[in-house]
């Protein structure tokens, strides 16, 4: 539990609603902008992509790295965040 960040815990703890993409764990300002440019302006749209990839964290991590330029740690963190959110709410 101590390995997850506060941001992670905040996201996973409740339905995401209309939260911006930067509320995702691992996604900061820079990466958030890159994603918004591609149309992923809300967290749920990124969730949509995660679901399209059948909730496969490896695939999603790879996609996120390609799409936003995230590094392995950031992409992995985001994938894990989404996975846990799905486990809790989907």
């Amino acid at each position, binding site marked *: 539990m101590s390995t997850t960040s506060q941001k992670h815990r905040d996201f996973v703890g409740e339905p995401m609603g209309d939260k911006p993409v930067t509320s995702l764990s691992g996604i900061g300002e820079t990466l958030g902008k890159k994603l918004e440019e591609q149309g992923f302006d809300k967290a749920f749209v990124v969730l949509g992509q995660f*679901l*399209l990839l*059948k909730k*496969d964290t490896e*695939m999603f991590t*790879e*996609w996120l790295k390609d799409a936003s330029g995230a590094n392995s740690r950031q992409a992995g963190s985001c994938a894990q965040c989404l996975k846990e959110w799905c486990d809790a709410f989907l």
Partner: protein
Amino acid sequence: MYSLSSKSAKEISDLLDEYGIKHGPVVDTTRNLYEKKLKEAMMKGKRSKPSPQKTYYREEEDEVTYVYRTPIRSDCTVDSGSYMRSRPEWTEREFEHDTSYSTYLRSRPEYRGRDFVEGPYVYDTPSTYRNSYSKSTPVKYDQEAPKASPRFIPLWIQFVFFLVVAVFLYLVFSNMETNESPKAIE
């Protein structure tokens, strides 16, 4: 080489299945990723067509016994043994007799030119076959269906250990009984 981007989504999906890549729908946002995955898989040279049965087609041919022409080489016989092993209708006994008989027939004209007696040499072949044949069966099992779970400690050692523990416990219990008689030194 064909270009992946000109393929339809269905074709990409089929290709992904062929390479054994788990995937979701091929849509705008996922297409690039899947194309990239396919390129990686193609470069690694994974089998593009999942039809392992193709390697067993040789059992259909009559020439399968032909492979036994070189009896001494154990690696050859292991390979051919594995092919033969996959025939379900052949029992082990029939199989051995038949192949050894076929080698009797075939080996004779072959070894005529050699300077050793045919008799003892022909006797050798069935034994080598048996040895290599028994070796081939575990190889085949490995290829077909890896059922044997990898053991860290070999099974026989586990049995021996169990026996040792059982004997030890027996000794302990039997000594406990004899100690009931008052031998204690006060």
